[in-house]
């Protein structure tokens, strides 16, 4: 049918697939960040070499372009849908009672998404921008070469309790976004068949809790070890 590509169902599928892709990105990103738990010079060296690899490898470059595209697509399509759904109800109810029929996170995906967008901007400015364009300190390796010291930038950033708190707060928002998002995306793409409903429901909850929790543990760890 010719209007498939402009149907709301198709748009929603795009929101779901881009969202699910971003979840796989989060898992990869998280695994890389776990290296921040390695103590001492050894951890510093390994993390900086990893950061160097991630900013120079052509395959990673391609992946990052796909990831940025997915973020843009996700934001663009969800923004469009949110505006459209506001238009679908021009006069609001004087009394509405959402808590009796739906979860808070499901009703506030756009608020949570906006928090995530704000987080993304701050996060990219702090680390991505500094790594590419900022004045970076260097770590001198035992073989005499020097390497940009992103490890130092990261560990010193999380000596600040407010900055640490901001990260943890945003991970709570991420968790709530994923709590509804993952289950919703599975329903939207049609996978949530009744016999697997429990599996998907609890699987989605596990994803929504564990990814942000492990992410948040890194700033907390860095802050506590700086004390």
């Amino acid at each position, binding site marked *: *049918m010719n*209007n*498939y590509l*402009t*149907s*709301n*169902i*198709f*748009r*929603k*599928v795009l929101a779901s697939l881009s969202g699910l892709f971003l979840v796989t990105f989060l898992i990869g990103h998280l695994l890389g960040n776990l290296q921040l738990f390695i103590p001492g010079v050894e951890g510093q060296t390994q993390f900086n070499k990893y950061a160097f690899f991630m900013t120079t490898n052509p395959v990673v470059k391609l992946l990052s372009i796909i990831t940025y595209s997915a973020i843009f697509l996700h934001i663009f399509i969800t923004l469009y*849908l949110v505006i*459209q*759904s506001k*238009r*679908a*109800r*021009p*006069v*609001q*109810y*004087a*009394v*509405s*009672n*959402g808590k*009796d*029929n*739906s*979860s808070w996170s*499901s*009703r506030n*995906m756009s608020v949570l998404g906006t928090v995530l967008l704000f987080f993304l901007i701050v996060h990219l400015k702090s680390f991505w921008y500094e790594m590419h364009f900022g004045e970076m300190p260097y770590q001198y390796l035992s073989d005499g070469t020097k390497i940009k010291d992103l490890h130092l930038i990261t560990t010193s950033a999380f000596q600040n309790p407010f900055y640490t708190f901001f990260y943890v707060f945003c991970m709570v928002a991420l968790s709530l976004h994923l709590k*509804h998002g993952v*289950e*919703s995306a599975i*329903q*939207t*793409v*049609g996978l*949530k*068949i*009744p016999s697997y409903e429990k599996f998907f429901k609890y699987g989605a909850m596990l994803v929504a809790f564990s990814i942000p929790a492990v992410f948040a543990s890194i700033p907390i760890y860095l802050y506590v070890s700086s004390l």
Partner: protein
Amino acid sequence: MSGLDLTLKIWRQKSSVDNGGFETYDVKGLNSHMSFLEMMDVLNEQLVTQNKEPVAFDHDCREGICGMCSMVINGRPHGPLKGTTTCQLHMRHFNNGDIITIEPWRAKAFPVIKDLVVDRSSFDRIIQSGGYISVNTGSAPDGNAIPIPKDIAEEAFDAAACIGCGACVATCKNASASLFVSAKVSQLSLLPQGQPERKERVNKMVAQMDSEGFGHCTNTGACEVECPKEISIEYIRKMNLDYNVNNIKS
């Protein structure tokens, strides 16, 4: 027994072009065995004796099967009771002295005609676009001649329980008609008689739903909670899958 005294805050709107606003009314000494609509009748009689315009509201069967009654009662379509239409909601579920806010269905695709009456012909146009079987499929004996597994028959029947009241749209934060449309698609597409037009039906009904200005589905699940016939959002999943698979294949 002295009966129930209530304060009602009701949306009054003279016509589709009027801005409208809330009016407050007191009704006293109500019998708690009354239905919500009978309570509205009492209010209207009171208004008529005071030479005031009665409140316009939709109703027909008053036994929970036609889908005409349509009021948002304290923020919930058809009121607080699960699986119940407004006409089947009884005043014993309210307490003496309650303040009850009554509003019409709110959606761009359901414009207010007067007071609590909205124009739901957008639903009719969705049905007209494909919610039918073009050939005569015969009467009950003909239907019974086709073997259909019990669980499929049950599932189709559960979808067919939709009375088209529009509570799903009214409660959805996006004013989405997905639950209604998916029930109307599924009641036919699950059965053998619905197969020849299956693809065309879902495509046309979804296109009509979009063009009426309903919002999209964000899977909050509010609709299945508020639906007086407790229709499951599983039908939405089915409809979406059908729609996607059809269009990706072609």
